[in-house]
């Protein structure tokens, strides 16, 4: 256990060659600006992958979500005539 020093003990010993602090003019220092964290450490806003997939689908691909072959296959499975396929999938835009 340490003992609190008595008032008789010199707490601060100043060097003989040090200039006196008394009379020093206080300098106004600007507040320290917080350092910007690197991008990897910054919290990121997350988005669902499906949102990005839809965005890129719109940006990159043809307007039709399926190929002609797949539409033909769907038409065969559901017995759609050419006219019906045109009405739903291939009408003039």
């Amino acid at each position, binding site marked *: 256990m340490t003992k609190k020093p008595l008032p008789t003990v010199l707490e601060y010993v100043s060097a003989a060659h040090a200039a006196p602090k008394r009379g020093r003019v206080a300098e106004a220092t600007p507040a320290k600006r917080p350092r910007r964290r690197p*991008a*990897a450490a910054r919290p*990121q*806003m*997350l*988005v*669902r*992958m*499906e*949102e*990005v*997939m*839809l*965005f*890129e*689908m719109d*940006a990159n691909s043809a*307007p*039709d*979500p*399926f*190929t002609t072959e*797949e*539409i033909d*296959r*769907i038409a065969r*499975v*559901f017995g*759609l005539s050419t006219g*019906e396929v045109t*009405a*739903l*999938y*291939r*009408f003039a*835009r």
Partner: protein
Amino acid sequence: MTAFLALNNRGGLKSFGGSTLPAVNDWCLTHSGRDLLQVARTLASRFSAVNIAARAVGSRDSGGSGQLLVREQIFQAGVPIGTIAFRLDPAQQRAHLSWTVLTPAARGTGAFKPMLQNLLLAMRDCRIARITLVAGLTHGGYVWATYGFLPQTPAEWTRISGVLRAKLVPVTAQLTPEQAALTTQLLGSADPLALRAIAAIAVPVTAPTGPTPIPLGRYLLLGSEWKGQLELSDGPSMLIYLRRIGLMP
């Protein structure tokens, strides 16, 4: 306790730990014939680094099915670009894609494609036959339909078709009688493939909540929620998926 593995493709293995690391490693060796580090390398392919948290549950010794739960954080050039969570269940030959999120850094880069490609390769090693997920929230119901996923069961399709039928009512007036009849006919089909037939409908309609016309298929499926699956043995569905994730032109 979960097993952790951080893999940096430039500097090699960075760190690993967790009391279940041996169990996860055993799981990988048993079900994919490769150790955890090799599985991690597959998942990290074409990315700079991954952080993997994995846990083997229901071990075969305890009579369970022996699933592996994985959460994988992916980095590109030191920046996190996304996290993907999935479950591998070789006993059922099933993988479940739980959720995937991307950071803005991944937007417009197509980074989700190699993520899904790597995942497919890891699944193939575990002899997975189908991928399941819950297509939902705002975009999932439409997006996963255009990626080749179909409702898991006819009953699930029957449920979702009822929801879509109700959604069709406010826009029926914008369709020709033939288009309305055909759409209703497809919604009344018992075949889950009808979901794809609906998603493909290109007739533009203006939704009650939106000012711009969008294709009817997209209008109906956006905001819907359904339990979907992709059968890897289903050629046409797989072709759609492989094209979408960039493995086929």
